[in-house]
């Protein structure tokens, strides 16, 4: 059960964060200027181009991914410590 939740937490958190950073970033590049999530202004200060996807949406995906990690941490805090049933950390021979 813990393994399933571990895997789900890793997949969901990385998925959300990479979607906000990389996938929507690729969409922004393909959509044309601006390539940074900041509106482009002319010399008069008028906005001449705005990002297709607002930075609020992209950062929200990253925050959601971080929130998943936080929820997972909370889950581990309220569940019993797992049994030390493997020898993964035994001292290795040099």
């Amino acid at each position, binding site marked *: 059960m813990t393994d399933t939740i*571990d*895997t789900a937490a*890793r997949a969901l958190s*990385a998925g959300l*964060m*990479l979607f906000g*950073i*990389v996938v929507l*970033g690729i969409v922004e*590049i393909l959509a044309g200027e601006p*390539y*940074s999530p900041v509106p482009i202004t002319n010399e008069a200060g008028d906005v001449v181009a705005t990002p297709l996807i607002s930075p609020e949406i992209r950062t929200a995906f990253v925050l959601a991914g971080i929130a998943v990690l936080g929820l997972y941490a909370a889950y581990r805090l309220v569940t019993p*410590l*797992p049994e*030390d049933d493997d*020898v*993964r*950390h*035994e*001292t290795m021979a040099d």
Partner: protein
Amino acid sequence: MSYQSSNPLVGETEFALDGPWATYWIAFLRVVTGWWFFHAGITKIIESGFSYSYGSAYMQQMSGTALGGIPVWMGNNLAWLIEPGVPLFETLIGLALMAGAVTRLAAFGGVIFMILFWIGNAGFGNGVVNSDLMGLLMFLTVIVLAAGRYYGLDALIEETAVVKQNPKLRYLLG
């Protein structure tokens, strides 16, 4: 509870730092670091092609740094390499890190870039540990942890006969 003499952190409280969470996080950091450089490079190519003249101008102004006259000389004499090289290498370094292919060599290139950014930007108002240094440490971390071996193509490349016959290639891969 087992005990590992080489790592005092592994004791009564188990953090499982060598478990799947570690590999997950190493791979995640590698991909995001790669995206950082890929985005910087590909947008320069779209906007300026392979004539990124700001690159050589930036280095020409890097006088009075710990790197001495090297970057100024490069800016004055290697514009033919810097102007196409900055967007091209940023893009390739980013792609390599995201794919996890030839990761250490690509991350070494990132280290070179970040040294020039850290030294050249000289935004030391809050100390020498600034975001540029943190970016530099990200590339060093990718190298030290051989991040391409986790969910990256280097894990497959290192299984090929060529690499097995030339194990020192693993210093550039991984």
